[in-house]
C-alpha cells in the first residue's frame, strides 16, 4: 500500500513540476525590468504570549549582493516554546521546546528576469522539515505589471516523543510531502494606487504513516467522545486523512494619500479539502512624522469547522476521521496593532547608508464557536466556549549598507 501511495505522489509531483517549469520558461520570455532586493540586515526579538503559550526568540536576516546581478541572504530564526495550552493540559503537562529555522537563498537577475531559489531547514526534537523554494518574477507592460510564479517542495518527518525513564525516544515517525504552487500579479493602476492578486494551492500528503496511524495530525492531540460508562468525556488519539489540498486567493491594494500617508487593504479567501472555509480582512494606515513612521493595522478573520471536527463525538470510533484541534474548529479572530519605526542615520553613518529601530505590538482575540473549555467543569458538552487573548511583540533594528 505504501509503495502505491509513494508512486502516485511521485507521478503527481513529476507532472506538476513539468507544467510549472514550462510556465516559468514562458514568463521568462516576456520583456521588462526589475532590480535586486536592497542590501540590508535585520536583527529581531519576537514574542507571542496568550492561551497559556509563550513563543519567543531571535531572528537574524542578512542580505548582500554577491555581484551586480546576484543577491544572497541568510536567515537564522528561533522559537522558544513554553506551552501549557488547553490542548496540552488535556493530554499531559506543560512542556518546553526549541525550534531552529535556517534559510539560505539566492536571487539572480538575468536580463530582465529575477529567479530566486532558497532552502529552509526547520529542526525540533520531534519535527524535522526541509523546504526547497523557487520563484520567478518579471515586470512587463512598461513595468506597470509584475507577474510572479513559484513552486515549493517540502519534506517533513514527524516523530512522537516517548519518555523512558530519563531517556527520550522517537521510535515512530510519519513522513509528509508538501507542495505549493503560486501565481501572482501586481498592477500599477494610477500614480497613487497599486493592486495585487495572489493565488496559492498547497497539497500535503502523508507518504509514510506511522504505527499509531499518525498522518497529517499532531501526534500528541486527542479527540473527545462521550463516555457513557462514566457520563464524562473520554479521549483517544486523533485520526486524520492522509491528504490535504487548499486554495487561497488574496487581493490587496495600497493607496498613496495626498498628505504623505498610505492606506492598505487586503482580503483573502480560503477553502480546503477538509471543508474549512475562511475569510481574512485587513486594513492598515501608514503615517510618517519627521523621522518616525507609524503603522496602524486591524485584522478580522473567520473560519468554518473541518468536516471531521467535533468538540465531542457521540461515542468512541464513531467515524473514520475524528479531530478536536481548535485550529480546525469554527472561530473568529480580531486583531489590532501598531508599529513605530524610528529612522536614524538618514544621511549615512560609516558603512551604513541608513537604519531604523522598530517596535511592534499586536493584540489578538480568538473566540471559538464550537470548542469548549473541557477543564472548566460542568457536564460533558456543556462547558463554556473557549476564548483567549494574546499579545505579540516585535523589536528589531535594521541597517542598509
Amino acid at each position, binding site marked *: 500500500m505504501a509503495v502505491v501511495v509513494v508512486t502516485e505522489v511521485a507521478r503527481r509531483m513529476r507532472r506538476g513540476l513539468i507544467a510549472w517549469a514550462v510556465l516559468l520558461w514562458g514568463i521568462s520570455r516576456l520583456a521588462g525590468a526589475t532590480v535586486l532586493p536592497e542590501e540590508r540586515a535585520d536583527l529581531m526579538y519576537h514574542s507571542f504570549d496568550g492561551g497559556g503559550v509563550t513563543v519567543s526568540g531571535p531572528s537574524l536576516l542578512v542580505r548582500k549582493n554577491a555581484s551586480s546581478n546576484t543577491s544572497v541572504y541568510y536567515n537564522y530564526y528561533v522559537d522558544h516554546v513554553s506551552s501549557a495550552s488547553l490542548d496540552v493540559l488535556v493530554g499531559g503537562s506543560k512542556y518546553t521546546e526549541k525550534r531552529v529555522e535556517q*534559510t539560505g537563498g539566492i536571487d539572480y537577475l538575468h536580463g530582465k528576469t529575477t529567479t530566486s531559489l532558497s532552502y529552509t531547514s526547520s529542526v525540533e526534537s520531534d519535527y524535522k522539515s526541509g523546504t526547497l523554494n523557487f520563484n520567478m518574477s518579471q515586470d512587463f507592460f512598461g513595468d506597470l505589471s509584475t507577474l510572479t510564479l513559484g513552486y515549493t517542495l517540502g519534506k517533513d518527518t514527524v516523530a512522537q516523543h516517548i519518555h523512558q525513564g530519563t531517556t527520550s525516544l522517537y521510535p515512530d515517525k510519519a513522513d509528509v510531502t508538501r507542495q505549493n504552487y503560486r501565481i501572482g500579479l501586481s498592477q500599477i493602476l494610477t500614480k*497613487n494606487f497599486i493592486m495585487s492578486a495572489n493565488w496559492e494551492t498547497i497539497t500535503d500528503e502523508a507518504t509514510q504513516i506511522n504505527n499509531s496511524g499518525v498522518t497529517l495530525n499532531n501526534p500528541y492531540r486527542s479527540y473527545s467522545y462521550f463516555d457513557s460508562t462514566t457520563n464524562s468525556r473520554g479521549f483517544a488519539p486523533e485520526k486524520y486523512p492522509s491528504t490535504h489540498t487548499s486554495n*487561497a486567493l488574496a487581493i490587496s491594494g495600497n493607496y498613496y494619500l495626498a498628505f504623505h500617508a498610505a492606506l492598505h487593504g487586503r482580503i483573502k479567501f480560503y477553502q480546503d479539502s477538509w471543508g474549512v472555509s475562511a475569510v481574512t480582512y485587513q486594513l492598515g494606515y501608514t503615517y510618517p512624522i519627521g523621522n518616525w513612521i507609524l503603522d496602524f493595522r486591524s485584522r478580522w478573520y473567520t473560519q468554518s469547522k473541518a468536516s471531521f471536527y467535533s468538540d465531542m463525538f457521540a461515542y468512541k470510533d464513531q467515524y473514520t476521521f475524528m479531530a478536536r484541534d481548535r*485550529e480546525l474548529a469554527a472561530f473568529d479572530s480580531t486583531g489590532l496593532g501598531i508599529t513605530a519605526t524610528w529612522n536614524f542615520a538618514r544621511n549615512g553613518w560609516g558603512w551604513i547608508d541608513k537604519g531604523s529601530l522598530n517596535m511592534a505590538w499586536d493584540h489578538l482575540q480568538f473566540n471559538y464557536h464550537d470548542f469548549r473549555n473541557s477543564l472548566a467543569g460542568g457536564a460533558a458538552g456543556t462547558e463554556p466556549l473557549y476564548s483567549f487573548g494574546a499579545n505579540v511583540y516585535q523589536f528589531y533594528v*535594521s541597517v542598509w549598507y
Partner: protein
Amino acid sequence: MRVLCILLVCLGMLQGCSSWQPWVKPYQRANLADPIMNPSRDPVSADYVAHMYKTRQASRGAQGGSGGGCGCN
C-alpha cells in the same frame, strides 16, 4: 493539460507587450516607490507574522513565507 495549453497561448500573446506605452510614466512613480506604500516592507517582520498566524488557524497560503516546521501547540 488543456489549462496549460491555454496559459501558454496567453503567454505567447504577451510577447508583444514589450513595446507597451505605460499610462503611468516612470517619472510619475515616486509615490508608489515610497516605503510607506508597502506595509510588509521589512521581510524579517513579515515572515514572522505569516508564521505566527499559520500555526493558529486553518487558513494558509497566498501570504508569503513557505518554510515548514511547527513551533505550535
